[in-house]
């Protein structure tokens, strides 16, 4: 009995192949230009829904983009501060050359230390006087050089600043350390909280906009229930049914991305001054718009398209899986 079944099955596949071939000869593949046109047509036909989708998605993208710009600028600020942030470790006055060299080696061994520069007693004094704008000759013989030998240390990773500092202090023959921990603390706290808020914002907005686009497409699908049933009954493949909706989602994403991009450029151009002055307070400056414009444009368009395509796919999938009576239950 099973043998017979198998034979029937084999015959089936051969016949099915034949049928498929006949279908192909009759028609050919997917009439993509027609389908694309249909998607664009749907977009216009349901303009109020399309409009609301585009507005919501643009607003979300805009907030996402602004968050990213803020994150980027803060990252930049932190890097600037890191660069500026030099810890100066003074070596015990009167330590011999070997001890001074050992302090240098010990400093280099600390993981977060990225640069160690030796400043001799003399060089330090010269520099200090120069900073004050005083000629050395004026003090010669009057005051003796009060500075000990020192090391200028730059550190990465400001989050670990405190422990790095402790390690530096613990090194033998280090008499004193000069640093600006308060500023560092403030900046790292700010960076953490702003980045956290932005990441949450981006995630929530992404999901919300996906949900809204998905709902829009779902509503347009309900209104096109008959079309879909007819398509199925005349033998449309799933791809055929999906295509116009995907195109619709794609165009919505594309338009939203472009709108957000234009608004962002306008905002940064006209209102960017506020951020610049804020950043200048910390001795940093805003990243120029031109530097991240291409990245931003790509990010906007890609995320717009991805969000709205995924949104439309989610709602189409549900429809495609159902057949017959199940399909009508949906509405």
């Amino acid at each position, binding site marked *: 009995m099973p043998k017979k079944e198998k034979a029937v099955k084999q015959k089936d596949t051969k016949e099915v192949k034949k049928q498929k071939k006949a279908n192909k000869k009759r028609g050919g593949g997917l009439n993509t230009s027609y389908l694309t046109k249909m998607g664009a047509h749907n977009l216009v036909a349901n303009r109020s829904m399309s409009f609301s989708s585009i507005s919501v998605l643009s607003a979300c993208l805009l907030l996402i983009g602004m968050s990213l710009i803020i994150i980027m600028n803060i990252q930049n600020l932190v890097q600037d501060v890191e660069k500026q942030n030099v810890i100066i470790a003074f070596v015990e006055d009167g330590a011999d050359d070997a001890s001074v060299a050992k302090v240098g080696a010990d400093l280099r061994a600390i993981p977060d230390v990225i640069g160690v520069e030796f400043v001799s007693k003399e060089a330090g004094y010269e520099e200090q006087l120069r900073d004050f704008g005083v000629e050395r000759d004026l003090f010669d013989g009057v005051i003796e050089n009060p500075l000990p030998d020192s090391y200028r240390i730059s550190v990465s990773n400001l989050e670990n600043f405190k422990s790095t500092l402790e390690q530096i202090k613990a090194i033998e023959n280090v008499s004193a350390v000069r640093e600006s921990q308060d500023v560092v603390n403030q900046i790292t706290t700010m960076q953490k909280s702003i980045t956290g808020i932005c990441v949450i914002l981006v995630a929530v907005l992404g999901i919300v906009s996906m949900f809204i686009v998905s709902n829009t497409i779902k509503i347009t699908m309900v209104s096109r229930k008959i079309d879909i049933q007819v398509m199925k009954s005349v*033998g449309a493949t799933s791809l*055929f049914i999906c295509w116009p909706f995907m195109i619709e989602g794609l165009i919505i994403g594309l338009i939203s991305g472009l709108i957000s991009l234009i608004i962002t450029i306008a905002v940064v151009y006209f209102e960017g001054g506020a951020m610049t002055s804020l950043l200048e307070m910390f001795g940093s400056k805003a990243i120029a718009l031109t530097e991240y414009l291409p990245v931003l444009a790509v990010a906007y368009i890609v995320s717009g398209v991805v969000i709205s395509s995924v949104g439309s796919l989610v709602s189409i999938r549900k429809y495609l899986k159902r057949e017959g009576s199940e399909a009508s239950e949906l509405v």
Partner: protein
Amino acid sequence: MIEFKNVKMRYKTNGAVALDDVSVRIDDGEFVFIVGASGAGKSSFLNVIMGQEKVDAGIVRVGPYTLNTIKRRQLPYLRRMLGIVFQDFRLIPKMTVYDNIAFALRVIGMGEKKITKRVRYVLKLVDLSNKANSFPHQLSQGERQRVAIARALINNPGVIIADEPTGNLDPVLSGEIMSLFDKINALGATVVVVTHDLELVHQFDHRIVTIENGKILSDIPARNAGELVFKSEPETVQEDVSLASVQEEDVEVSEEEIISTEEEETENA
């Protein structure tokens, strides 16, 4: 060929029996009426053929496909072999008559040139050439049903399945629609018409399968099998003449199809 072998099926919604040990075979070129009261299982019978519902037991074959094991992605190809006519017409309101019919061909990816040719032919067949640019709401019920039939025919399917095609029509229009199905059957298509209108059924001489409570109650063959009896008036004969002329016009398409079939056969041999 459509074949049901000891098919059993329950409704998914309430578990009641929809089809109970149904065995029936419809050969190519037949005209069959499926009759029964509403809820007797007629619609389930059609839904199974269209691949919309799966059976719980038994074997169902439609053409080359065994529907028990058919894959989801094969369903579109099964449906391309079937021309389906619904009681509520299911025309797309925003499309003209022409586009509604052409739609079925666009779905399978046919080129626009071929589409124009075929739509014109089918519109002549259902006598609606002058309504090509009308929208469904501008048509009478009978005309809408003819558009629906034209759409079912357009893809040259071997089987036409009509679910209560006259349910929304008055007796005169119903008779006209049935004559149209007769004409289609005479052109070689298998026609399966589901209806509860016994009076209408008895005006024609075709096989009648009666379903009741999910079982086949009777299966009466046509008295004059193979011979077509038009009950309608001379009008119909005239229509037949026009049909013949349309066919001549369409010779090119038919030839192409014959050639492609021959090619396939040689390839398969």
